[in-house]
């Protein structure tokens, strides 16, 4: 694989217009990735789903070269109807369009020259891969006291013009004091068997609010990895919702550092999996100062041959007194071939804290089904109703009404 990486990298350098300094940085990341390769089950974070095996099994012709000098046509049929929104369109590994038509242009700044280094400690070779083969990195700055009027939807699209089987995306967001951003990731990939590697870096200053909704609903054969790094200052709020249902493999990883007092992080997720899907959510919440709060709720509905994993970690520093941390993961296994794995982890060094986690998994409650059937529903309807209620619980946690309704429609839940 290392020869392939090297030659694809050389091709990339030839066709694109990176500065020599950028190339130096990229080269460094490439060397790191060649050294470490894809993460495997020997690494604790990848224990449940081994991505190196999954990639080996699914993508026989792994290639990394994307021609960033070519542009792609935007197919408007994929765009979300009935909801006014700003867009970033990302096709085949390249950002084709950034459009903030609904906003005050003076309040938003798009910078395409960001620092090339990564500002946090990581042990993740996928970020090296991302940094090595990425096109331009954009930074979106929301200025002080500005709340976006409309949500921003990032469209993740691929079409048959795609050249390589690995595409990378990185975006940096900076939310200045008292600003607000609603961000929707919308996955509509039509091609199969690509490895999509996404890395977002968020910096939330004082009193800012970030809402990130990831919608991966439409069945496709892609393998996806998404990493969100969130830094939070005083009194900032981050809300993340993950609908993990479409891809063959999808791992969502969130690292959230609560650096400022009274900051809080909310993570809610739904796995709705069928045939041979393998999805995972891994979260790390670092409570680093006093009076911070985190809340996590993850629910899975697992059909035939599917597998979901949840690894959640709450870390409480010895300074972080009065921390409130909560984690709950629940799973319904519908078939004898479905599998649920969880590792809800607490690492606590302060004594005046309230931290708890819970995890439960099992089949649908026969008594509830009986109750519904005795009231005239058939077996299938009763099952659907119970699952509907089970998932609604998570969707109800979404604080933005417009997007909540969008998500309810996309999943097809009944209220």
């Amino acid at each position, binding site marked *: 694989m290392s020869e392939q990486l090297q030659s694809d990298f050389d091709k990339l350098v030839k066709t694109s217009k990176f500065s020599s300094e950028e190339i130096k940085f990229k080269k460094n990341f490439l060397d790191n990735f060649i050294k470490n390769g894809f993460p495997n089950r020997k690494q604790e974070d990848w224990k449940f789903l081994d991505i190196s095996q999954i990639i080996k099994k699914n993508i026989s012709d792994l290639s990394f070269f994307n021609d960033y000098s070519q542009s792609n046509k935007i197919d408007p049929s994929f765009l979300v109807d009935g909801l006014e929104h700003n867009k970033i369109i990302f096709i085949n590994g390249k950002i084709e369009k950034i459009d903030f038509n609904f906003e005050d242009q003076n309040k938003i700044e798009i910078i395409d020259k960001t620092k090339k280094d990564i500002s946090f400690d990581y042990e993740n070779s996928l970020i090296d891969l991302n940094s090595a083969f990425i096109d331009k990195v954009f930074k979106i700055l929301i200025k002080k006291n500005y709340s976006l009027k409309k949500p921003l939807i990032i469209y993740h699209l691929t079409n048959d013009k795609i050249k390589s089987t690995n595409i990378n995306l990185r975006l940096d967001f900076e939310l200045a004091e008292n600003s607000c951003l609603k961000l929707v990731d919308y996955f509509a990939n039509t091609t199969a068997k690509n490895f999509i590697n996404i890395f977002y870096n968020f910096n939330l200053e004082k009193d800012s609010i970030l809402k990130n909704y990831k919608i991966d609903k439409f069945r496709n054969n892609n393998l996806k990895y998404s990493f969100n790094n969130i830094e939070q200052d005083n009194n900032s709020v981050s809300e993340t919702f993950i609908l993990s249902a479409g891809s063959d493999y999808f791992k969502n990883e969130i690292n959230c550092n609560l650096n400022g007092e009274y900051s809080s992080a909310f993570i809610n997720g739904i796995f709705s999996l069928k045939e041979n899907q393998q999805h995972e959510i891994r979260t790390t919440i670092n409570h680093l100062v006093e009076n911070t709060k985190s809340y996590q709720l993850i629910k899975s509905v697992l059909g035939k041959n599917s597998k979901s994993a949840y690894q959640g970690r709450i870390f409480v520093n010895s300074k972080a007194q009065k921390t409130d941390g909560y984690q709950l993961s629940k799973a319904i296994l519908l078939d004898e071939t479905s599998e649920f794995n969880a590792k809800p982890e607490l690492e606590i060094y302060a004594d005046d804290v*309230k931290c708890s986690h819970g*995890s439960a998994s*099992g*089949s649908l409650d026969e008594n509830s089904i009986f109750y519904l059937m005795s009231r005239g529903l058939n077996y299938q309807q009763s099952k659907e109703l119970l699952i509907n209620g089970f998932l609604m619980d998570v969707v109800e946690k979404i604080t933005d009404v417009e997007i909540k309704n969008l998500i309810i429609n996309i999943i097809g839940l009944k209220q």
Partner: protein
Amino acid sequence: MDTREKDIEKLKDYKYGFTTDIENIKAPKGLNEDVIKFISNIKKEPQWMLDFRLKAFKRLKLLKEPNWQKPKYPKIDYQDLYYYSAPKSMKDKPKSLDELDPKLLETYKKLGIPLQEQARLNGIAVDAVFDSVSVATTFKGELTKHGIIFCSMSEAIQKHPDLVKKYLGTVIPVTDHFFATLNSAVFTDGSFVYIPEGVKCPMELSTYFRINASETGQFERTLIIADRGSYVSYLEGCTAPMRDENQLHAANVELIALDDAEIKYSTVQNWYPGDENGKGGIYNFVTKRGLCKGKNSKISWTQVETGSAITWKYPSCILKGDNSIGEFYSIAITNNHQKADTGTKMIHLGKNTKSKIISKGISAGFSDMTYRGLVDINSKAKNSSNYTQCDSLLMGNKCGAHTVPYIKNKNFDSNIAHEATTSKISEEQLHYCQQRGLNPEEAVGLIVNGFCKEVLQQLPMEFAVEAQKLVGISLEGSVG
């Protein structure tokens, strides 16, 4: 001065010129085939036993010491340890209690252990496991009447080779992890229990373990077999005298429960935890595993872990037989610089298997405490269930409490429920107790005992009282 102290005084005055060093028969330092042959030879073991050891040793050479655990420790030089040491004769044991560390005596006093018992604990009287060789085992007569075999491992190898051959290494194979394999290669002695078909063991079986000779890693091997429809409750209690050097303890305990049998295994572990600055103390790296082999069998582990510098163990149950039950009740207390990484594994293989885990962790001072557990429900384990509850209590912000459960559910008929909380002793509770005349330490003791009640209830009477006091003593100096 109460009578006991007077007695101690008397004993102090009793100035027999006691012998200087305990002369031990020691195997040469280091770990190699010759040492293993030496151990096997001195114990007059049959060839198959030596083969077992050598097979383990061969495997050991391929294994690496694991290092994924939370408490890290300085590298152990396995070539610098003695793998065998046995007391030459009774007269070499300490003659009186005043040879012992006064702090240890103080602890005994607080625990309310009678003088005779104190002496027994320290090998002054006869019946005790002293170092690596069982000197004597008691209650033989009563047990023989029921056909129960309760003897040392070395004796069992000589007298009941068929049973040992049949079961030894079936739960913890020689090809297991590093420390278990090390034990298989060099184990010296331990207990062997066999309960025949349909027999309910009339008494609690117990052994006191003790580590004495300096630089002797202790490698105990215990094997308990409960035949069809039998029941046994086994107690393991441990104390160790003051030591400055770190001592390794890598025991293997195997339990096998056949159809309808039940084994209850209780441990109170109170080994030397090192001093206030974290110097010295025992490394307790023990492998304990039970196999519910037959239908309707049950294995229950209860542990109170208050000692050792580092505790690193996971008493586990393999629920192979249909309808079998596994239970794990644990209290782990760490104070000063102690570290613990403990928990359990429940592996559900048979149908309708049930398991329950109750773990209470308390950390104070500069200590670090981790619950690490695995619940794995196999795809064939239909209609199984697990309930896990692990609570941690923190005292002060220099210590840590961690929970790392691994949950794997591969069966849609089965349920797993897991709960964990971390909290501190509330000011209100403390205030309430103090208002009613308890001093802060007594108040903490009371609250902690309440926190641990669910587990303490599981202990047999003999242990429950001692354990309750131990909980209080372990937390001394952690309030205020």
